[in-house]
């Protein structure tokens, strides 16, 4: 028997080496490190909210600074005519896009959920600024491709940021919400022209169901059952625009861009906001066309807000849980994420959030075979995020007790920026009322000064997922003469990452092409099989396929696993073995029969 050893895990070896090198070089030897941080090549701000044009301008700045790695293009137009810009990160020196597993990252499908877009810009910026500086980042960029779409709902984003913030979850294809034949004719109105939609409250002594908080009259609280208050709430700031006797009954849009996807899609009466058929919305269609033509994508992250969640599918209980093999993969990734993201829980959408039919990550998991997460960015628990302060919040005399904590935070950390004090207003339908309440940027979005940490931690989770996408390698090979010119050939086939090349669900649904094992050379294949245990004699699982020079591995190669293939061949000379995987890459080795 002759054993030859290929570099088993060349990447890990390189990493190990580089760690040694890095620790042996003192800071003074490296230019730019003179007791302070190296300057950034591109300076961007990560503590304010950018509209679509500003996001794209930041991307263009990065593209100009890193033209070798970055390329921008439009996936298509939104209903409102805005581009859906894609940033591709690929190192051409390490292979073409389609030869490497890709991580797809998007944000902002709901127009008001804006901070995810800032995370995606941060991600592009961080990867580029640290390529060649931080070894893990360098390796990640070399091994993987990143497809980043900072906003898949630019109409909704700009409606939120430029407008008053009302009704901006939806996209902006007009929908007749109130069945009167008119479209989007009666949305909220900024009656007091402060670029914000407040709440309306009305003073109705002894006849209301709300009262003012005794400690802070800016706060409204419902009265206990059986009592009466002096106030009622009358919804969002607005008037009866169309004179039908109702206020704000048909605002912009009125659907949900995250219910227009083709897995467990359900009609409007089962799933509100679904529209008439999957991919009817131009934004969903553009994204899906891209995803379907990029089967190298193995991982997906769609950033939402809020609540602090690392969500996976399924979106509805009736879909049944994922196969156990897929759950194990998701759990390894999700539980790791919980350690990176304090205040975030790893949850299944339907049981941890609410039922979603036709959601984006259900489609990417079930229909496209991509391991998919959706992070709900920002958890209100992060306002007072030390154990001591949490403890103090239990004290009913504390100014940060739960009902008062929001205004306390706003008064003393944001200096009153986020709350509009109640002011009287003469309303055409309701008479004398008061307008006031929280601004659009408070609640689901973090305080600006806390955004960079949010961006970094969520990015770190997504980069971990990207690193754990499948990556095939061929290891030890062995060729042993059995008799005459008949040989036994063994080759180790390895995927050292967590994710399989094909998920169990993708194999069930036949949505990812199978992995293929090709054997080429001047030899006749007598049999092929999988060696159960290379180190102990035992049976081989024979492969019962008609064509043993092109073996189909329909459910792919699991994560963190080495398999040994055995061929019994008759022949001589060189044999080329090639493992082809759409998501795990293509690797090749040569075995000489001599």
């Amino acid at each position: 028997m002759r054993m030859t050893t290929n570099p088993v895990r060349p990447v890990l070896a390189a990493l190990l080496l580089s760690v040694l090198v890095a620790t042996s070089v003192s800071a003074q030897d490296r230019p730019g490190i003179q007791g302070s941080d190296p300057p950034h090549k591109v300076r961007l701000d990560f503590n304010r909210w950018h509209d679509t044009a500003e996001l794209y301008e930041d991307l263009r700045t990065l593209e100009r600074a890193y033209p070798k790695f970055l390329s921008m293009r439009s996936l298509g137009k939104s209903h409102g005519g805005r581009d859906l810009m894609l940033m591709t990160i690929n190192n051409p020196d390490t292979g073409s896009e389609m030869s490497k597993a890709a991580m797809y990252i998007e944000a902002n499908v709901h127009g008001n959920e804006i901070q995810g877009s800032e995370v995606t810009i941060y991600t592009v910026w961080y990867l580029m600024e640290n390529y060649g500086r931080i070894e893990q980042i360098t390796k990640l960029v070399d091994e993987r491709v990143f497809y980043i779409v900072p906003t898949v709902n630019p109409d909704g984003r700009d409606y939120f940021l430029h407008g008053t913030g009302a009704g901006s979850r939806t996209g902006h294809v007009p929908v007749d919400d109130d069945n009167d034949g008119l479209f989007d004719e009666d949305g909220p109105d900024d009656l007091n022209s402060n670029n914000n939609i407040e709440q309306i409250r009305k003073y109705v002594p002894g006849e209301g169901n709300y009262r003012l908080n005794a400690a802070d009259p800016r706060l409204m609280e419902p009265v206990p059952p059986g009592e009466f208050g002096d106030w009622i709430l009358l919804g969002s700031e607005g008037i009866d625009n169309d004179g039908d006797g109702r206020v704000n009954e048909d605002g912009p849009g009125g659907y949900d861009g995250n219910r227009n996807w083709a897995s467990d899609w359900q009609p409007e009466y089962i799933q509100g906001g679904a529209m008439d058929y999957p991919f009817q919305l131009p934004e969903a269609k553009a994204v899906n066309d891209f995803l379907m033509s990029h089967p190298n994508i193995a991982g997906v992250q769609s950033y939402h807000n809020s609540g602090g969640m690392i969500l996976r599918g399924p979106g509805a209980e009736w879909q049944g849980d994922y196969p156990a093999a897929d759950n194990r993969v998701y759990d390894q990734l999700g539980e790791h994420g919980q350690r990176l993201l304090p205040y975030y829980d790893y949850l299944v959408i339907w049981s941890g959030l609410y039922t979603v039919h036709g959601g984006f990550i259900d489609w990417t998991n079930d229909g496209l075979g991509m391991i998919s997460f959706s992070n709900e960015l920002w958890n209100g628990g992060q306002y007072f995020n030390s154990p001591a302060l949490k403890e103090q919040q239990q004290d009913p005399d504390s100014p940060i007790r739960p009902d008062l904590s929001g205004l306390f935070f706003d008064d003393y950390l944001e200096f009153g920026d986020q709350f509009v004090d109640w002011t009287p207003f003469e309303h055409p339908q309701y008479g004398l009322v008061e307008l006031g309440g929280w601004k659009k940027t408070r609640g689901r979005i973090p305080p600006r000064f806390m955004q960079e940490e949010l961006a970094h931690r969520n990015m770190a989770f997504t980069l971990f997922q990207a690193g754990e996408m499948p990556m095939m390698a061929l290891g030890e090979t062995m060729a042993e003469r059995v008799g005459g010119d008949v040989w036994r050939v063994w080759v180790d086939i390895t995927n050292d990452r967590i994710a399989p090349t094909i998920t169990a669900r993708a194999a069930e649904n036949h949505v990812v092409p199978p992995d293929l094992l090709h054997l080429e050379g001047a030899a006749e294949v007598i049999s092929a099989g999988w060696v159960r245990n290379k180190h102990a004699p035992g049976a081989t699982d024979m492969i019962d396929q008609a064509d043993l020079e092109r073996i189909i591995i329909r459910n792919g190669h699991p994560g963190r696993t080495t398999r040994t293939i055995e061929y019994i061949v008759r022949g001589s000379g060189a044999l080329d073995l090639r493992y082809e995987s759409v998501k795990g890459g293509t690797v090749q080795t040569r075995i000489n029969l001599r």
Partner: protein
Amino acid sequence: MRKRWQGEGRISRTSIGVVACALMVLVLTAEPLRAQTVDYTKYHTYDELTSALQGLVRSHSNIATLVSIGETRGGRSIWAVEIANRAGVPVDERPALLMAANLEGDHLIGSELALATVEWLLTEYGSNDEVRRRIDEQAFFVVPRVNPDGAEAVFGPVATWQRGNLTPYDDDNDGRVDEDPPEDLNGDGLITFMRVRDPSGPYMTDPADARLLKRADASKGESGGWALYWEGRDNDGDGFYNEDGVGGVDLNRNFQHEYPYYAKDAGRHMVSEAESIALMEYVIRRRGVAAILTFGASDNLISSPGGRGELAAAAALSLFDQAEASTSGARAVGVMSTATAGFGRGGRGGRGGAPAGGGRGGGGQQPATMIDTTDLEYFRTIAAKYQELTGIRRAAVTRAPRGAFFEYGYYQFGVPSFSTPGWGIEMAAADTAQGGQAGGGGQRGGGAGGSPVATDNDKRLLDWFESENIDGFVDWTPFDHPQLGEVEIGGFKPYVTSNPPAAQIDELLAGHAQFALYLSSLFPRVRIASTTVTDHGGGVFRIEAEIENTGYLPTAAAQGVRAGAVQPVMVQLGVDPEAIITGDVKTNFISALAGSGTRRSFQWVIRGQPGARIELKLRSQKSGSESMMLTLR
């Protein structure tokens, strides 16, 4: 002479049956279609159909328009004929009947029925009051060939059973696309079947008819001995015969209701195809469409829906299903047990896993899958009328309508929606459909009784061929197969189970044209039936109004209401909301108003200026709108 089914099963341009058929029209059809200019003695190719449509529209340009609703991968336009007198309400807002045919590419008879209905409506417009009224006040939207690429394959040199479009699809997901289509090994121009003596084969000769096979039932002491395949070679050497042919997506499995997820012929996802997108975009922009009639492989007209709203069971073609089963294992090749992969064995189902007791439910409302009991009577009444008008009692072959367009039409678009193969193998014993049948005597294709269950529909078809003198089955003939050795090639000819012989087209046309007209006569008709204005003095007036639905159908099917697909009827008084002192609100909605004279009353007491004129507005999605000016006095 044996009547050939269009030249050895292929659809040829010239029909041997032309002469016989011309005679039969005179004898058979109680109400022959008048003044036909289109030749219905043959099935039309795409070009022939296009020029027939263009000719009809050109000669009736006052009431007909031909529009392209989309383009196929093969570069063909999908035509819609819009029939309406364009004076008056915009056509896209009118109550309309949508007809769609040939979603299954091999279902050519549907195109002929649609084409003939177009011609009949256009030619009757001048003389038939009923037709004139429908065309003046309503509209007909007719898409006679939704799948022109698939249909064109029927006219190709080899008949293949192709039903889908031309979208390439890796049916067996082996990484190769369309690499193992069937071949016409014996050169008869037909793809039929191969049966092979095989000790492990699951089929035995059917005792009911030695030409058929049935699955052996070991529990009854039966043993197999035959394997069955589609005719052809194993091109890719994977051990399966003809498991991945050309194309395609079966368009009538590509829509949103009970979509067959990840089935090999249903497309990558719902509404994935250019043809299905075109049809969806067309219908969702025409919310006046009040009923849908499709011609295709599923049925809810020849057999009425059952008492719980379920459709009759499909009548399968066993030989077809048996051949399909021979390829199903191709999708399972290469599945490896992950238990041997060195991953931690067994263990948890995952942290986020579904709690015990999961499964259906819990997540809220389920989509409906049976016709609502309130709507059922309408469906049954309409089906009975269809049976009366067409005389068709039994379809040849039908299938369960998962993902079918007409099911979308009812369950999601929310209107009465129908499908019929449009022909049958048993006809009513009425004088319209009997006397002159070649081979005559008694009902067509009787004699099915007593056959074993597995193949009774196949046997029924063979008997029908016999009685109609149709050459629809290739007798099993030995053939030396390059891979399998000695085989026998034979079985049903392609398309004979999806279309009647061309000679029988003509007798089917009148009934279907009349049925289309009948459907369009059932639409709801909501009008302001009466109004009164009473002056109470002091600038206070009482306004009373009644609206009435004089049509047969309700303004919305119960499923249309449940699905939120049909807008409620809106009754709105044109005053400031503050002017209403008491009574109804300014804008009122009625989710559904039953037909046959059902009324609803409204009243408002308002403040107003004597002599002022006030608009009363009625808006109904499926029966048009009306507005009336009332004077306060």
